[in-house]
């Protein structure tokens, strides 16, 4: 087992950050924790990396208990926090060397594991970490988290604020690491990244909404979604939101995703209603749900 979490709860004074969380990550799995800021993702990461103690529940990482065996966990996991946490005054190479030494290893010994990533920052190896661009910092942090060849890798929002191109490159890197046998738990607020994981947990307000493969999660969506388009998107959203049979209305790229509360919904009725609201060029067609649709339906 890569990670096992059983009935974990954690409160900060009056705030319940995590409420009875349970899930398991298999060895070698790429598991995604998908949820917005404040969902409790970072608290969970800190508990699993033995930096924080839960109020209730138990958890193991690489078969070590987070309380009684915390020293072994620290030796066998890599953790890349959401906030850049390397030494800004040390150079790229010094940071890497520092982390290798702390874990009793050398850069040479595990160079294979980081090679693909390190070659991209190697031209800047004498630059101080604080002077690197965001994308470079992220790559260096990943190298430092990998330098002791961890069994389990924790990545807390590695792609937040990162542009789509760099995000795609980062996920390609994760896939390659997974092929080398590393179990990966990664969190992200970007719903489109969920599809790149083996399994995901949707999390909001400290509670897990659902756990499954990305494919199964969208299959469980309870309604037929329609793509709706008209000449004025803002007026369209307002009209749909005030339609008496509206179940949900969310803008989605160039369309609005609409679901109807009736079982025998006829799109022609909606066209007539929208026309009565002075909208024109109305298009309505069936579409498939995405992870984001599912998340919003569950979070409603």
């Amino acid at each position: 087992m890569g990670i096992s979490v059983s009935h974990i709860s954690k409160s900060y004074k009056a705030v319940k950050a995590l409420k009875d969380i349970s899930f398991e990550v298999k060895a070698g799995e790429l598991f995604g924790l998908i949820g917005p800021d404040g969902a409790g993702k970072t608290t969970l990461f800190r508990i699993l990396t033995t930096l924080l103690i839960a109020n209730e529940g138990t958890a193991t990482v690489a078969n070590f208990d987070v309380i009684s065996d915390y020293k072994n966990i620290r030796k066998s996991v890599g953790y890349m926090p959401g906030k850049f946490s390397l030494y800004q005054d040390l150079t790229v190479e010094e940071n890497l060397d520092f982390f290798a030494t702390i874990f009793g290893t050398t850069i040479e010994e595990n160079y294979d594991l980081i090679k693909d990533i390190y070659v991209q920052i190697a031209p800047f190896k004498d630059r101080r970490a604080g002077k690197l661009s965001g994308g470079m910092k992220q790559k260096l942090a990943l190298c430092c988290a990998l330098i002791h060849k961890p069994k389990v890798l924790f990545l807390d929002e590695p792609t937040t604020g990162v542009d789509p191109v760099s995000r795609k490159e980062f996920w390609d890197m994760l896939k390659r690491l997974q092929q080398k046998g590393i179990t990966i738990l990664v969190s992200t607020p970007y719903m489109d990244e969920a599809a790149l994981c083996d399994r995901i947990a949707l999390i909001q307000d400290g509670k897990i909404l659902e756990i499954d493969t990305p494919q199964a999660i969208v299959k469980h969506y309870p309604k037929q979604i329609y793509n709706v388009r008209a000449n004025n998107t803002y007026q369209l959203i307002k009209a749909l939101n005030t339609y008496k049979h509206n179940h949900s209305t969310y803008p989605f790229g160039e369309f609005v995703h609409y679901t109807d509360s009736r079982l025998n919904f006829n799109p022609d009725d909606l066209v007539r209603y929208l026309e009565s609201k002075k909208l024109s060029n109305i298009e309505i067609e069936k579409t498939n749900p995405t992870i984001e649709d599912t998340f919003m339906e569950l979070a409603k």
Partner: protein
Amino acid sequence: MKNNKVIQVEGLTKIFGDFAAVNAITFEVNKGEIFGFLGANGAGKTTAMKMLIGISTPTSGKANVAGFDVHKHAEDIKKNIGYMSQKFALYDDLTVKENITFFGGIYGLSRKRIKEKSAVLIEELGLEKVANKLVGALPLGWKQKLSFSVALLHEPKIVFLDEPTGGVDPITRRQFWEMIYKAASEGTTVFVTTHYMDEAEYCDRVSIMVNGKIEALDTPKRLKEKFKVDHMNDVFLKLARG
């Protein structure tokens, strides 16, 4: 300046040392338009935006924002625009009401006007119960909606939004965009950067910056046709990867 052009940029350039962070960009934004300003990290978006909001002087080129020249009247630009970003928004250790009063004061609104605006804004956002709570205690999504409203307090001609929805949950993200649509429908120009490509589709037009230059500028629909793809994400990947 023609009436309906609220931003006019011509050959705008910023050079740091021997590096052209912004390399002769030219574009225009219309009144009431939602204009998406996209680009990879490091493409020069922030540098360009800083010049447009009057806090960085261009090395060369022209820009007129809200009727004022960025070279000569940077201070007037600041009074006539609103600005919010994910990083700088509101003061966490002031209450909701105090933040509104503070920013209203900064923009020179009268006490009476601030009081009126404050009441309307708190009601519209449904913040009655937390009006006297510290902003730091609010969920991120609420903060972002509040700071957008605060950026509009002085009824600016243009509002600049720098990644306003990063990390915000999907439902709140959409409510935020409804606020953007509303502002635009009332004639406010919205200039917005985002890393969510579905949000790029909500814009009337988008520009994509690559290495300091604007490599594409059109409606999302026409850009997708031009690059023969179904999503803005693919347009972005094609352009930014060369």
